[in-house]
């Protein structure tokens, strides 16, 4: 099995065995970071961010720098030729000759897929609109695997913006490929999980899907609590955002009813949906989750570039 030259646009692009190979390498990197500090020497990552990002962009860039490679790119579409009207297809055809691998974040859904059709280097989807965010899924799965020891037979609650939350879309699609998982979808009616995502879930393997607006009624039977931010940038109407933005706030009081070993996860950035007081709770792993993002992206790029065998 080899991931060399593949694109990662949708979590479905990788088999579960291929996911495992990424996690196993990430675990090796965590154990001994020094062994990997030169494996990308001479390699260049193109970091193409058409939309603001902190964690995803910096973790990709940190990952490449930690492996001895270099980074070029932009973090604002206004400083690229896109502002002159250049198409993504033309941009990526040119950048294919400047770099060895590229990560693309774009506000339009499907933009990384389009780029991959015109690219001669591996393309990684760094988040496309409200669609998918497969490397956040790698980060989330590595976190669950590390703290729970398994990716199957777990009750996972997704809370907040399930309509536009691309991290939710990628993660639930992937977790539905593992057997015996149960999903609890907690959101306002207007921000429910889209039909096309429900359609894409593997219902053969999933035990149950529950949809509710009431967080308190379900919090006592959850293994993983995945909170998300209500995303202002995805709303066409400001009034709708203001009405929904404080729908759910996780605090110490609500956590009293939760399992003692429930993991509290969040893809970050957080606004106010998890109170700061929860940060001190041993169950809160969102900062560790962000740290894992660097290691899993190191593993991913090393495998796509085919440099791991030299480590």
């Amino acid at each position, binding site marked *: 099995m080899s991931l060399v030259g593949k694109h990662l646009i949708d979590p479905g692009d990788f088999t579960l065995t291929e996911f495992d190979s990424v996690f196993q390498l990430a675990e090796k990197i965590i154990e001994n970071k020094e062994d990997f500090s030169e494996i990308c020497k001479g390699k260049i990552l193109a970091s193409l961010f058409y939309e603001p990002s902190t964690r995803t962009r910096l973790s990709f860039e940190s990952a490449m720098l930690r492996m001895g490679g270099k980074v070029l790119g932009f973090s604002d579409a206004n400083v690229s030729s896109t502002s002159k009207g250049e*198409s993504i*297809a033309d941009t990526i055809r040119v950048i294919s000759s400047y770099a060895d691998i590229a990560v693309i974040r774009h506000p339009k*859904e*499907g933009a990384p897929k*389009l780029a991959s059709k015109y690219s001669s280097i591996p393309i990684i989807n760094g988040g496309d609109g409200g669609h998918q965010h497969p490397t956040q899924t790698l980060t989330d799965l590595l976190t669950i695997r590390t703290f729970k020891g398994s990716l199957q037979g777990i009750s996972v609650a997704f809370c907040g913006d399930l309509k536009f939350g691309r991290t939710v879309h990628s993660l639930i699609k992937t977790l539905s490929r593992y057997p015996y998982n149960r999903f609890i979808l907690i959101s306002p009616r207007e921000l429910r999980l889209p*039909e096309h995502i429900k359609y894409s879930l593997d219902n053969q393997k999933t035990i149950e899907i529950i949809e509710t607006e009431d967080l308190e009624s379900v919090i006592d039977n959850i293994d993983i609590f995945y909170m998300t931010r209500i995303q202002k940038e995805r709303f066409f109407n400001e009034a709708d955002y203001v009405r929904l933005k404080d729908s759910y706030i996780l605090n110490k009081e609500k956590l009293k009813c939760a399992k003692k070993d429930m993991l509290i996860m969040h893809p970050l950035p957080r606004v106010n949906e998890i109170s700061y007081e929860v940060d001190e709770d041993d169950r809160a792993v969102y900062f560790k989750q962000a740290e894992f993002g660097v290691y899993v992206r190191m593993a991913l790029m090393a495998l796509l570039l085919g440099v791991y065998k030299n480590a």
Partner: protein
Amino acid sequence: MLKVESIHYGIVIDHITQGKGKRIFDKLNLEEVDYPVVLLRNVPSSKYGKKDIIKIENCIDIDMTMLGLIDPNITINIIENEKIIKKMKVEIPKEVHGLFRCKNPRCISNTELYSNPSFKLVRFNGTVEYICEYCEELTSYSL
């Protein structure tokens, strides 16, 4: 009974659901062509009661995918020397490229010229639902 001469070489689009003939005529841009065409409406049919028919002389190249989207009941007859040499049944297409747009305003296929909107058939329950290759949004297409 209205009489229309048989054609020597071309195609007959038969068994069009009554009332859909004009739409297909328009979609195939038959107003613009310079070869003989005829649209017959409300023709008695033993199978359907009434049907529409389109006859096209001197042309056998038409978009079957588009016909399948509008009316999967259609039969295509290829005519040579006034005889049917091939009969084909159109089907609801499993894949559609460039015939309609994705309904998701955030989809890249609605803004980027290079992307040809492409869809795969995923469901069929009175409406035809297609999933967008780019954003995976479901787009319904009513028959």
